[in-house]
């Protein structure tokens, strides 16, 4: 188990920013850390990287405890903090040399070349970090986190503020990294979780409200099965409610919304109903719930 978090809590003043959080992350897995702003994602990450100590609980990274042996933990972790802090007056390569020096990696030049290629920084490698656009700075941030080839990567909102193309690039990179390493990354963008993560951890007000593989989470969302249908002719509400499996009927302009029981598909019955009543169906669609819905359900206060 690469990262093991047990009963982790952090108190700031009277507020519990993180409250009794436990989870595990395996290697070869991308763990998405999802939650509204101020849910405790960043605080949890800071405790895993030994930047701040927990009030209660334990974190172990590759078998090392964060309190007892922080230096060993830091050797195993690559960390990209929130807002991606960088020295703006340093050159890209100079900065990577500096970081490589701290980690005492061997053959720094080769490693830097590799990383520059991996993160797509070839054209920008001789520039000042301060002169780079946000997307490229984010890449520098990723490169510095990976320089010592860590087993665990902790990325705090690595994709914030990127344009759509850069977003795709960085996501692919994270996905690729996740094949060999343990990646924990936080975000509040739902699509990203669906695109990148193998497992999702939803955290709200300092507590874990869901910890599931992504497909399990999607099934969880199947609460209400909503079918929206539009007929050319006028339809009768009572008759519609009589369709087998339909529990509730409501009308929105010309569209009818039929709510069916969990896990049932009533589209066939609706079609049969239309044929029997000489109605022409102009449109019919089933609303699939996404992780987004689960997120809303779980974090609604």
């Amino acid at each position, binding site marked *: 188990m690469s990262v093991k978090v047990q009963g982790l809590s952090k108190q700031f003043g009277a507020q519990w920013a993180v409250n009794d959080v436990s989870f595990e992350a395996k290697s070869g897995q991308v763990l998405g850390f999802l939650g509204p702003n101020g849910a405790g994602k960043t605080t949890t990450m800071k405790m895993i990287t*030994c930047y701040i*100590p927990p009030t209660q609980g334990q974190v172990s990274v590759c078998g090392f405890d964060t309190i007892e042996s922080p230096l060993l933990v830091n050797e195993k972790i690559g960390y990209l*903090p929130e807002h991606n*802090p*960088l020295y703006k007056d340093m050159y890209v390569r100079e900065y990577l040399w500096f970081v490589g020096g*701290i980690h005492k990696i061997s053959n720094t030049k080769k490693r830097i070349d590799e990383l520059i290629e991996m993160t797509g920084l070839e054209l920008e490698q001789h520039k000042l970090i301060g002169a780079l656009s946000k997307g490229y700075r984010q890449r520098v941030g990723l490169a510095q986190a990976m320089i010592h080839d860590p087993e665990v990567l902790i990325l705090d909102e690595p994709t914030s503020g990127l344009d759509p193309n850069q977003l795709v690039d960085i996501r692919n990179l994270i996905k690729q990294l996740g094949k060999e390493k343990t990646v924990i990354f936080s975000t509040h963008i739902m699509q990203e979780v669906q695109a990148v993560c193998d497992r999702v951890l939803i955290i709200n007000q300092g507590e874990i409200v869901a910890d599931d593989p992504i497909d399990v989470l999607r099934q969880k969302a199947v609460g209400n099965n909503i079918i929206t249908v539009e007929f050319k002719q006028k339809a009768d509400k009572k008759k519609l409610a009589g369709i087998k499996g339909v529990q509730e009927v409501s009308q929105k302009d010309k569209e009818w919304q039929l709510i069916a029981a969990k896990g049932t598909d009533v589209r066939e019955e609706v079609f049969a109903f239309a044929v029997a009543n000489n109605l022409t169906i102009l449109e019919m669609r089933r609303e699939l719930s996404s992780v987004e819905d689960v997120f809303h359900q779980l974090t609604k206060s």
Partner: protein
Amino acid sequence: MLSIFKKEINSFFSSLIGYIVVGVFLLFMGAFMWIFPDYSILNYGFATLHQLFDFAPWIFCFLIPAITMRTFAEETQSGTIELLATRPITDFQIIMGKFFANWLLVIIALIPTLLYYYTVHQLGAPVGNIDAGEVAGSYIGLILLAGAFVAIGLFSSSLTNNQIVAFVVGIFLCFFFYMAFDFLSTLSSNDHLIELFGINYHYNLLSRGALDSRDVIYFVTFIFGFLFFTKTALERRNW
């Protein structure tokens, strides 16, 4: 520690900071020693470097906090301290790296003043009529004093994320530890005991050319004391 040290030195000399510090220091020293007639070596009539060693601490009181104000304040402000703190190095290694880099910059600023020594050496009648032991002791004292000021500067920078606050607090603490104990001692009958705490007392003793281990120990203790305070201040995130 070496990486931090190199990075700091690089940032001094790849930006203007390093050159300005050395330039301003030499400009002040040059003006006092060669231009202003009240202090000028040429008018003074004695083959000594007293002016240099009397004025340098005052200039350091301003200059050193100006160099050190960014060390931790900037890192805290930009968040890069988080990246440093989550590397496999201890806080004390970070502090030591920064301390030696800043100290070295001040020592580099002092090196060209050796030319003044050479000049006075040549101007003496007969040539070489200058107390070399006194000058050596004074340089050692000045370098140790600079180290003490750098330690104070690092500490004040670690207190805040605002560089101006760090600068002002740094100047205050430098003046306080340099001179305040001398002034305070005049208020009390235990004047000698109070003087002992001040930097000036030990600096003056070293300046006489008598390299007493007690004075050196005073400076080393002083420096490590402030580096330890700096460490404590950085660790306040753990509270």
